[in-house]
């Protein structure tokens, strides 16, 4: 009786329910797997905010929770960008902070007191579970096969390309933005399919949420119009497309303009012009369709041609005029660097200096996506076979995202969802064909031949697999690949993407773990030993961390809105003390922080970033700071005895190596990052004094001396304190300078 009882469960209406229940259970399991695989860092280290930008988001969230929404909206932050300050409320994407704030308040309402830090740390894993669900919905729209959606959800849940930005503690905009991206696309596909105002409005709503959460919303702003444009070009205009696009554009643009940081960009910035253009185009096409019903063919043709020419001429002329007159802002530098990878290095060093803006290396694709990357083209090919409106979307998305992912490392993130969709389509097709236990009947064969499709590739009849051998081989190999994928994802997540980078871990020779906690040591020193408004100067990388962990005002931070201010810091770091000191005084700097990896062999230190400081400073003061001066005559970047005078006299060099030689026997000082032997004498600092050096010398803090009490310059004062006698300027050259009152 066992088979019959199974039949009851698996067939008929109760069978549908069973499958539905199974699907829910599988999705929940996938979401759980997605969340738990992101918890490596919490288990291995602690519940801590990672890296740089998350520290700002965390600080902003705390401000929001403490001061309420309106003061967050009008927040003028006087603890960053000293003395300029930052209109933070108007220059950030508030979606992330507001989301955590809402969660915090809901939990409080339910009388679950959770620390805001834990909400922030766990927000990204939580949303990755939602992303997996959204992925299921999106892929289910693309395919009739029920397995495609589940596979896509599973892929999205654990693929390293997405995990890299969403491990626990990686509290960044991308944490919620990828969910919103996928879900917005799902709603868009739904809207195009149904031609419904409701779905269009929902798309606009989630688009608005996306705009509030991440600058990458421009990707949606351009992809949806492109989808519509391609559909129009393919002659697939329909009222469904018209309704969904106009609804989305009108409501979505209004929604996006509510974010202060975006403001009027949607109607002024070139990045947004394609959406506006397509909006105009679709009105014209709709009008033409309307006219067609009332006019005979020949007259309509004439009207259409003249209208097209006129509109194109007017539109293009208008665009050029507005761009030249400056009403429409020119393309932003980040955008140019998408087309020409060398552009940023020449024109905007500040963008090029960020490692995640570098072009992607080829192995990274396999590293982040594993076997999905070779299933991806197959999935795209299968979209060509069906080529309904939503499949056109997948094709466009894949082409665009592939290009962008090749140009910039961080855009791998936007490629990942579509790779998961395409790979799931391909894999589900394979499994659907090879997992069918029964042999295909001739009936289906006849049905397949009668079907006629436009594309030749689709015309071949699909019959089925007869041989048990080929079935088992293919299924076994696919299973093997899937298992390897899981193993790879887990390995990559645990090894590459789960380091907080605030705390460094290394292995001792005996295999035990050695935690390097210098950053926090130094930040807490600052927090506990300096006045509340002591200004800290450091290179901009550490600005957010100082603001977050040390709670002290900084000169520049990772929100690189003012290139001149960053160049000022670069100039202070790369100039002689006599030049730097007035800059430090003018900006009220109390402490200077440098990161030095020479003792430990930590390669991400300031001396290795130093050339970027020089370059950025040179961009503003080409006469005073010259990159060439930091290279030897043979073009080498050296820090040893042969270093150039500009290098040896620069503040950065002096601060890095101050007193470093005293750690070693005379003449034996080694820099383990650059692998060179250092000069015998450590550099002499006059205007700064060492305040703190962390355990492994990674972070070094210097206090800026006040002006000498007796009006001497600092080198003379230091020489006097050392007991050197001042040489009297007995033989003056030229006429005697008389003192006048």
């Amino acid at each position, binding site marked *: 009786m066992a088979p019959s009882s199974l039949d009851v469960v698996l067939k008929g209406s109760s069978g549908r329910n069973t499958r539905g229940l199974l699907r829910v259970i599988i999705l929940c399991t996938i979401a759980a797997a997605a969340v738990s695989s992101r918890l490596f860092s919490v288990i291995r280290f602690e519940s801590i905010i990672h890296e740089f930008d998350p520290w700002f988001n965390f600080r902003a969230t705390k401000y929001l929770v403490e001061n309420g929404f309106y003061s967050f909206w*009008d927040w003028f932050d006087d603890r960053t960008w000293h003395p300029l300050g930052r209109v933070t409320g108007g220059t950030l994407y508030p979606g992330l902070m507001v989301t955590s704030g809402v969660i915090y308040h809901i939990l409080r309402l339910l009388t679950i007191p959770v620390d805001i830090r834990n909400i922030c740390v766990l927000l990204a894993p939580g949303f990755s579970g939602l992303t997996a669900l959204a992925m299921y919905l999106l892929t289910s729209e693309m395919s009739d096969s029920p397995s495609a959606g589940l596979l896509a959800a599973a892929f999205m849940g654990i693929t390293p390309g997405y995990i890299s930005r969403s491990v626990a503690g990686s509290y960044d905009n991308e944490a919620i933005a990828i969910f919103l991206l996928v879900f917005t696309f799902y709603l868009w596909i739904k809207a195009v399919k149904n031609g419904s105002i409701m779905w269009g409005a929902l798309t606009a709503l989630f688009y608005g949420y996306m705009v509030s959460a991440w600058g990458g919303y421009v990707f949606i702003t351009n992809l949806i119009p492109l989808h519509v444009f391609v559909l129009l070009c393919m002659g697939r205009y329909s009222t469904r497309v018209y309704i969904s696009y106009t609804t989305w554009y009108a409501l979505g643009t209004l929604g996006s303009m509510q974010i202060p940081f975006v403001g009027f960009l949607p109607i002024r910035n070139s990045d947004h012009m394609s959406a506006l253009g397509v909006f105009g185009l679709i009105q014209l096409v709709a009008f033409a369709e309307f006219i067609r019903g009332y006019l005979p063919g020949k007259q309509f043709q004439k009207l259409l041609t003249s209208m097209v020419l006129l509109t194109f001429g007017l539109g293009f002329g208008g665009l050029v005029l507005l761009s030249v007159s400056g009403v429409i802002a020119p393309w932003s530098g980040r955008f140019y660097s998408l087309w020409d990878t060398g552009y940023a290095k020449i024109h905007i060093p500040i963008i090029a200096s960020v490692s995640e803006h570098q072009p992607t290396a080829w192995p990274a694709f396999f590293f982040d996506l594993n076997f999905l990357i070779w299933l991806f083209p197959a999935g795209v090919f299968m979209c060509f076979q069906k080529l309904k409106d939503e499949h056109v979307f997948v094709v466009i998305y894949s082409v665009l995202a592939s290009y962008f992912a090749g140009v910039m490392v961080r855009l791998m993130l936007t490629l990942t969802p579509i790779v998961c969709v395409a790979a799931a389509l391909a894999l589900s097709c394979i499994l659907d064909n090879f997992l069918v236990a029964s042999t295909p009947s001739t009936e289906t064969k006849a049905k397949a031949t009668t079907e006629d499709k436009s594309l030749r590739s689709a015309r071949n009849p699909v019959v089925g697999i007869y041989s048990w051998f080929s079935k088992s081989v293919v299924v076994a190999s696919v299973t093997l690949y899937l298992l390897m994928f899981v193993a790879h994802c887990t390995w990559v997540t645990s090894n590459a993407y789960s380091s907080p980078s605030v705390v460094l871990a290394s292995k001792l020779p005996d295999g035990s773990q050695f935690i390097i906690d210098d950053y926090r040591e130094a930040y807490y020193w600052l927090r506990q030993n300096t006045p509340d408004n002591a200004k800290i100067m450091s290179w901009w990388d550490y600005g957010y961390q100082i603001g977050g962990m040390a709670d002290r005002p900084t000169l520049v931070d990772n929100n690189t809105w003012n290139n001149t201010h960053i160049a000022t810091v670069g100039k202070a770091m790369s100039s002689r003390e006599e030049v730097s000191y007035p800059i430090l005084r003018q900006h009220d700097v109390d402490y200077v922080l440098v990161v030095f990896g020479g003792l430990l062999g930590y390669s991400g230190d300031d001396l290795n970033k130093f050339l970027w400081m020089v370059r950025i400073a040179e961009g503003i003061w080409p006469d005073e700071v010259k990159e060439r001066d930091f290279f030897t005559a043979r073009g080498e970047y050296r820090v040893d005895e042969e270093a150039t005078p500009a290098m040896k006299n620069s503040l950065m060099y002096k601060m890095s190596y101050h007193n470093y030689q005293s750690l070693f026997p005379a003449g034996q000082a080694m820099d383990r990052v650059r692998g060179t032997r250092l000069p015998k004498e450590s550099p002499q600092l006059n205007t700064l004094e060492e305040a703190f050096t962390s355990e492994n010398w990674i972070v070094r803090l210097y206090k800026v001396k006040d002006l000498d*009490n*007796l009006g001497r310059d600092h080198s*003379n004062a230091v020489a*006097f304190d050392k007991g050197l006698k001042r040489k009297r300027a007995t033989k003056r050259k030229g006429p005697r300078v008389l003192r006048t009152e």
Partner: protein
Amino acid sequence: MRWCLALLICCLAVVNALSSSGSRLLAILEDTEQKDLYSTLWADLEARGYDVSIESSKSEQLALFKHGERAYDHLLILPPKSKGLGPSLTPKHILDFMNKDGNILLALSGKTATSSAISSLLLELDIHLSTDRSQVVVDHFNYDTLSAAEKHDVLVLQRPGPLRSDVKAFFDGEGVLALPRVAPQTLGDSALLSPILRAPATAYSYNPKEGMPAAEDILATGSQLNIVSAMQARNSARFTVLGSVESLEDKWFSASVKTPSGKKTSTVNREFAKQLTAWAFKETGVLKVDKVEHRLATEGAELNPSIYRIKNETIYSIEVSEYVYDKWVPFDVPGDDALQLEFTMLSPFHRLTLQPTHRTDTSTVFSTQFVTPDQHGIFSFRVNYKRPFLTSIEEKHEVTNRHFAHDEYPRSWAITGGWVWIAGLWSVIGGFLAFVIVWLYSAPVTDTLKKTQ
């Protein structure tokens, strides 16, 4: 108990009344037998409330610091004959004493060569002595014919007036000074230095042991030679150099002198010594900021807020008193000078003269009113008043100048230029409503016609 405490505080106030920065005065003499020469000076100082302790520079237990703190408030150094001032008074100790707010009056003498330790100390302060350190100022027009008819090295000078028209005079008055055997100093270009008494234009200096000066080896001539000069460090610690120690001696306090052109008069050295020591030990020329207030110009605004908005009307006021011998009095800015306020972010956005608005018994309140600039950022109210002979005022108060909040802009109907858009908006809404009404009530007519047909 309370009145006891009050009495104690009163007593302390009386004891400390004379100098604004303490009364412990250490006088250094090479050998203490010399002290009888200056008995009037000691008596005058003690009469003004100083606890004068006289020590020999050779003394073993002499120490400027005790437990890392100053053991004395003021230091009076009379010139030693030997090479230095001993191990407890090295230039480093003396500069440390200044860095810890101690005041120093150093007397030199042209009679003997100045020690090299003192010369190098003065060099740190940018005060220069001649290379041989044993020159004397002579003037063939302003000398005392009674005591130095031959050598012309006892100068007879008027007391100095104000240094510039915008500087207060602390050393002026009637009568002449006799300054025997002055060791001259020249000053470097530091803004911290200022001459108290300069030699007349006809003076020059030479080494009496070597005869007439060689033309190329002249320290300086005329008014570039300083007889008394002053240095005020950034922390307002004072260092005064007096070129002629003999002028402090009892015999010159009441001597009669006669210039080549004038008649016989008695000197006012005692008066001048009082003025000089009073200034050097911070009895005069000391400024104090009692209170700094800034607030919005509206009634009942919060005092000293940490945040302002751009384009706020703001009032700033500062209360300054000056110490004159034994009490605080309201400070008056000298005629050609002005006390100024800067509102600064990187560079000053405003530099305004503070006007005296009202006076209390001990202080003057200066204030001004201005509109904060249309630039958000972290600004500071700065008063930076550094003048010769006055202790410096350096007040810096950081405030944030924020942008308009979202609800502080004028509403759309308050902007006349916006009325066009508002009219457009409402006409579209009205038009749409009208259209809907027309549409709703005009449709069914054709239907009924068709049905009847």
